[in-house]
């Protein structure tokens, strides 16, 4: 096990962070505005979000760099600022962490589909290597390849992230099939676990896609298929629109009621994805330390 990961886990299950996008929206990020650009335009707002998670008890926080790869940034006409956006992303989280949390830098999907020829493996390899290097050079403690729907793309990202020598977390979205236990491309937790471990990921897991209840069986199956630590960041249920307002079904209390089961199922890193907030992280933190 990578020493960074081993040190974190020596103190028991690790609380990670929650959603960033909704937190940034609460601070003025507009509809359709690209969150990563705020690392340059409004770093103080981004840092507020990071700090809110650190204060809530996150032992690991991510970075506002989910979409800061050249494929996504090209859509924003911001490729020339790629290194700067990633560097600032790490610096902002680091400043908020001030020794209290580790900074795991976020690498999200390209949004393109390899199979349809939207993008080639070479293009993805180049994009991920470039982003991973920028994040590592800026001093990230680890890299998180997250919210991946296609195992093939995830493996390209993991391989690029590994080149930096940093520990690599790789997690995928399980939201397809009758039982919502497959990736979009149809892979099972067992297939994902084997492939990501063979690909060299230090921690594997699941994020986004569904609420926390569905994460219990998935974590169990991931855990059974590997000896690597398991990462789990579930949504706060599925969002619903009520009278024009976004409502998430889960309260922090409902969410944390599943945390003991999640840990029993093998999760070592626990946090939240869409719809979660610092209140969720604080509740998870209390639950884990109790």
């Amino acid at each position, binding site marked *: 096990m990578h020493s960074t990961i081993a040190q974190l886990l020596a103190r028991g299950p690790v609380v990670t962070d929650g959603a960033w996008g909704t937190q940034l*929206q609460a601070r003025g990020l507009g*509809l*359709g505005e*690209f969150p990563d650009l705020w690392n340059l335009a409004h770093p103080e707002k981004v840092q507020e979000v990071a700090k809110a998670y650190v204060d809530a008890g996150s032992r690991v926080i991510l970075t506002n760099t989910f979409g800061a790869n050249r494929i996504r940034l090209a*859509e924003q006409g911001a490729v020339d600022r790629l290194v700067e956006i990633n560097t600032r992303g790490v610096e902002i989280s680091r400043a908020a962490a001030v020794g209290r949390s580790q900074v795991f830098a976020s690498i999200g999907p390209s*949004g*393109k*589909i390899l*199979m*349809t020829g*939207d993008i080639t493996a070479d293009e993805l390899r180049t994009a991920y290597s470039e982003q991973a290097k920028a994040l590592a050079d800026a001093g990230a403690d680890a890299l998180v390849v997250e919210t991946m*729907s296609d195992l093939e793309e995830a493996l390209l990202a993991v391989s690029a992230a590994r080149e930096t020598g940093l520990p690599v977390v790789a997690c995928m979205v399980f939201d*397809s*099939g*009758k039982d919502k236990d*497959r990736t*979009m*491309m*149809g892979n099972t937790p067992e297939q994902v676990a084997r492939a990501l471990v063979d690909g060299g990921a230090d921690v594997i897991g699941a994020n986004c896609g569904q609420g926390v209840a569905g994460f219990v069986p998935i974590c169990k199956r991931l855990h059974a298929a590997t000896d690597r630590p398991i990462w789990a960041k579930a949504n706060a249920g*599925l*969002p*619903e*629109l009520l009278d*024009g307002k*976004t409502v998430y079904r889960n309260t922090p209390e409902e969410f944390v009621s599943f945390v003991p089961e999640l840990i029993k199922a093998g999760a070592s890193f626990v946090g939240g994805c869409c719809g979660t907030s610092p209140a969720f992280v604080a509740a998870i933190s209390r639950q884990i330390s109790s």
Partner: protein
Amino acid sequence: MPELKPLYDAVVNGNAKASQAITQEALAQGIDPLTLVNEYMVPAMDEVGRRFEANEYFVPELLIAARAMKASLDIIRPLLTARGDQPAGRVAIGTVKGDLHDIGKNLVGSLLEGGGFEVIDLGVNVAPEKFIETVREKGANIIAMSALLTTTMPAMKTTIEALKQAGIRQQVKVLIGGAPITQKYADEIGADGYSENAVGAVALAKKAVAAA
């Protein structure tokens, strides 16, 4: 008449080379292109949809089947156009204003093409005016909108309102989809249809043009 079951199989198995070769051979023997489409390819895509619903097929199998279907349609389409046959429908597809998530939209677009529709892909973050322009200038008769976020969902309603304002709401069928969308929401905003997955979206589009 040659044995055409292999055409059906080629589409179901996503073998684009085979479906194209069989199509060419069949056309050379004077078989009507519409016979190929309606009696072999469309039933094949129906079978692909059934397998998806049954969890036997996942997105990759859908994509390669749609690609095989399209490989044949690329040969057949010009023949149909030349004799004045129209495509099943002309779809303007895009993610709504404010939404940048395009995987679902791309998937639905591929399957609609495989289903015999002409697809005009407007990309992401599509303003209502852009949809309106596509209806007016390119003759789209279906608008397919996608939103992944609850925060961008309301743009679907805005777009439908804009179509009304422009006086072209009756000319088009509006279909919507995306993670946070429900049938209830579709009904509330006056969309013509909602599907929770890409296979259902093709069926919905077919129903929409049949009802038009």
